[in-house]
């Protein structure tokens, strides 16, 4: 029992903080180091960002990505222009047929009707 009492007493003694006259100065020193560390970290992050940005730009330039992208855009523009020309040519060919546009519309309408009839029959067959 005395043993336990002594250990509890020792625990208490260890847990009693000693009075130190320079406690405030010590705290300020720690705060100063924290602030310094924080500022250094901010500078470090900024510098790392700058370096990463520069590396990224140099890689972009080095890999000819911009040049390739420009070429691809040009190729696409040429392909689009030729497609539009093809469409215009087709419409001109249709206009050159010996019958008028009404005949074409009539043919299209008949085709739709035939399709509808086929669908109706199919539905009836499978019901």
């Amino acid at each position, binding site marked *: 029992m005395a*043993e336990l009492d*002594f*250990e509890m007493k020792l625990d208490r003694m260890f*847990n009693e*903080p*000693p009075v*130190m006259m320079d406690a405030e100065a010590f*705290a300020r020193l720690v*705060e100063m*180091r924290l602030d310094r560390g924080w500022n250094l970290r901010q500078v470090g992050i900024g510098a790392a960002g700058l370096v990463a940005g520069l590396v990224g730009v140099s890689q972009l330039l080095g890999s000819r990505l911009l040049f390739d992208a420009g070429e691809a855009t040009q190729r696409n523009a040429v392909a689009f222009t030729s497609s539009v020309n093809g469409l215009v040519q087709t419409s001109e060919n249709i206009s050159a047929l010996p019958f008028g546009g009404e005949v074409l519309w009539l043919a299209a309408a008949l085709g739709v009707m035939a399709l509808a009839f086929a669908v109706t029959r199919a539905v009836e067959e499978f019901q």
Partner: protein
Amino acid sequence: MAGVRTPASLHDVELAALAAAGDRPAFGELVRRHGSAVRGLLRRMGAEPSLADDIAQDAFLAAFERVSEFRGEGTFSAWVRKIAARLYVRRWRKESRFDVEAEELEDSHGGEISAAARIDLDEAMKSLSPAERMCVSLCYGAGVSHAEAAEALNAPLGTVKSHVKRGLDKLRLRLAPPEGATGEPAGSKGHG
């Protein structure tokens, strides 16, 4: 103005939560409250005052880095003291200045025990060998178990236990009231 709460009016757990969110003044208040306890422990472990202050600073900086891990299960003071004690042990081991398995040294104070020394823990700690001092401080000051102390010191558990036991016997004698200065039978239950 009842809604305004200064860091000084907040509980340790609230301050730690603020510090975890990057509030450095809140952490400064924690340093103000517990700095002396941490520095005191390091001195009791055997560190010179200037070294103790350096390690205490490092311990608080390390504590700030991982303050989000502090959940308020124990006291903040105990948490930082444990960090500081581990830093000090690591430093000792790195500098190879400490052999925990070495036999105890001569009692530096020897002979008569003054009445003042009997009630002063700091003075009493000086009567212990470095190994005993380290083990007792770790187990009672930093709140680590015998097993954790053995791991931190890289020493066998039995060695740590015997250092703690011998240290406690000496402290009992030193801290006993004058009429009981003849000493009691030794024996220790230890912490861990």
